[in-house]
């Protein structure tokens, strides 16, 4: 659900990077943060939890092109992947406009991917939303590791809805597939908001 600020002539979109723990969501945001020009990004904020927990969430505001005279601004979030942080994940999903599902391609994380995707659907339902109506893409991360499942099998597990969404192979630490996923989901969000052809600088 985008937010329009008529005074600033800006429209805000919320993109959430979702996925199991240690799949590479933070790595995606870190790479985006490193690679975007200073003028187009705000500060990245990472909140960590305790000694044996990972990220609470990450946040990165970025600005993009102008559409119909409105400056588009994207707020990029990650969620904590650990199972017991579900309330945090649910809260971060509030008002989401698009999702990048970051899957861990390693064989021993396949089950975690499936459970995380199912958790995403459940949490969206809390807000009367569904994956069918939410722009999202899938990024199969860590493709540089040796013990990864074939993409065909990952697709079979994670992209099996009636309409298959775009997917990308990724190595987030090296930037592979990071901007492909971000740009695609952003354009899907824009297409949903503006319905097509109008574009700006």
């Amino acid at each position, binding site marked *: 659900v985008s937010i329009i600020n008529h005074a600033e002539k800006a429209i805000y979109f919320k993109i959430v990077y979702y996925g199991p723990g240690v799949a590479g969501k933070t790595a995606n945001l870190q790479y985006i943060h490193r*690679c975007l020009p200073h003028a187009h990004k705000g500060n990245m904020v990472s909140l*960590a939890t305790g000694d044996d927990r990972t990220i609470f969430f990450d946040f990165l505001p970025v600005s993009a092109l102008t559409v119909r005279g409105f400056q588009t601004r994207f707020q990029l979030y990650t969620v904590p992947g650990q199972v017991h942080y579900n309330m945090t994940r649910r809260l971060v999903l509030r008002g989401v406009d698009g999702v990048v599902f970051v899957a861990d391609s390693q064989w021993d994380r*396949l089950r975690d991917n499936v459970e995380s995707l199912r958790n995403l659907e459940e949490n969206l339902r809390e807000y009367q939303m569904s994956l069918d109506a939410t722009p999202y893409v899938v990024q199969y991360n860590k493709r540089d590791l040796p013990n990864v499942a074939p993409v065909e099998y990952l697709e079979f597990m994670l992209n099996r809805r009636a309409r298959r969404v775009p997917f990308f192979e990724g190595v987030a630490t090296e930037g592979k597939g990071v*901007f492909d996923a*971000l740009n695609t989901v952003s354009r*899907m969000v824009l297409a949903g908001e503006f319905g097509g052809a109008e574009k700006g600088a």
Partner: protein
Amino acid sequence: MGRRRRSLVTPGAWVWLVVIAGLHLAAVATLGDLARVMAVALPAVTAFAVPPALYLVIALLLGRRAPARALGGALAMAAAHAALAAAGVAVLLGVDGRAVTVALSLVTTPVGVAVQAATVLVMLAPFRGLLRPPVRYPRTTARADRPVYPRAKAPVATPPPEEIAASPAITPDGAGAPADAGGPALAEDAVAAVVDGAAAAPVVDEPTAAPVEPPPVDAGRRSPVAEPVEEMVRVPFARVADQFPPEAFRLPMDRVAANLLEPGHLLVPIRLLLPQLAEGVAQVAWSVVAEQFPGQALAGAHAEVARLLPAGMLTLPIDEIVPQLPAVLFTPPGTALDVRGLEDFPPPFQPHVPPPGEEDEDTRAAETEATSADDEPDEEAVIVVGADEECQVETANEDPSSPVVEPERIGEHELDVVAAAPAMPAAAVEPPAVDADARPAPAAVALPEALARSLHVSRVTREGVGMTMAVAPALDADVVADTALRMAPFLADRRLGTRAEQVTYRNGPVAVVVTPRAPGALVVAASDTAASLALLERWALQAAGGGAPSSAVPSPALARGERLRSVDVPGAVSAVAGTLRSFGPVAPTVMHDETTGTVLYLFLPPSSPALPMATFARDVTAELATGELGVPVSVTFRLGSRRLVIQALESGVARTALLVAGGPVDRPGLARVELERAARRLAGV
């Protein structure tokens, strides 16, 4: 093909039957008078009743596991006997020209009856396999040393329907259901083709000999397996062997593997795996594979072995299974999303050039605000963006009915996130009975509300050490205090190189966090739910004034003798070192404690000597093992930005190995995941 069918169609068996019958009749014709001379004829009833009884006894002995077959066999032998007697009479009448009464008396003498019975038994000996249940000796042509395995087709034990139903991790509530309940569950046609093809597939392989080395276990004791023939996948036994506790088998694992029905491999019906493929997991009940194990290798009954497995299930390595399945199974069922309209929008984001590697590290560090542990948010938090356009974090419960403030969107350059301090109107700490420390404490020891409801706060003095304790009611405070006192000396142990700010003991859901506050003063927090551990550690640090390193109690002489010796580092251990990336570069060392037999796998920065850390880890574990909370699963020392983790490795029923990892850790969650993986791998070394 089974032995039964081969015996029926083998011409040799029939030739044998005819030859023996012919010899018998020739003997009757030649030696008929001899039988008459040697004994008188038996009464007809006796002569024709005794042989069937004899045959019935013999048939039941040979076919005791298949009574119906035994009865049939006895009838067949009796029929053969009658046929032989009739043929003998015919021979005597036709060839020898004797009278009917004489001929009958000849075949009913004791000698005549005995010879006929012996002839029947010898004549039908090749058919004795009919008396046993159908025994199959399936083998696929694929051998373990072949580089590529075709999908094996082999007859296996088909578990009862209820076991099959229990085997997949599929539950109606969706716990094991495909991710998209609304979409097609599988490529149904392809699945059906595989299953149907499997059912019709013939078995073409002959039995193969049991392996010579190591010597095979009595294959005859292996329970018979039954039809139908199924299409199978082959799973290397070595990949699942670590799920069996050693007490499950009488033989070493390598011999168990060598004596499997398919040496070195388990065969699993594809149809049991297909429903689970969408879950990224493959599990089968023990009963599915039980018959493939030699009976003598099992230490107990199948039910006992099943009890030793988690939920009676074997988790199979899916990376071994998927490559054996036809790719058509993984054809996504849906249609690709139409994204043609997207080209109307240029890519909103373009990566910065030059590449990020050239960006100044300091600049990046300044731009990335990462909160430290001291001002982290609580575990479950609500993001609240107020009118002042700041994000705040406040504690909340998991209860979805808790009031949640809708976040508002704000300007990008005004965005900031502040980790608010935990709610402080919490349980007040009782005034210290003996205030051994110099710092003011009560204000800092207030518990967050979420913890205050679940922990009981008290203050005790034990052995001259003042302890501010926050302990879950389910835990014995005395036991927790005792554990804390056991851990406290190690906080200031010289072998650490620096004094630790905090140490956390974990054993299952129980966690005890010990944080030094001042000389002779500790903050001790104990929880019986692992989920609150992060909050507990953070609170303890705050309550201890930031967890400033201080000597809690005098460090005693802890050396327990240097009976540790370095041993060669196996390749598998070296490989594990490469996976612990969150600890920075680490060098693997393996040490053996000759006193206790404990093996220590150390992964420390190359500049850190291994022996002191090995003795330290051993001493910590030994000290805690004598406490009432028992051997820790893990002990974590927080040393500024560094962590030292001592983790027990499960080695059967006894923990005889320790994993010790240390180094700078900036992503503790990742470190934890890496350690868990490393522990699993090392447990199999």
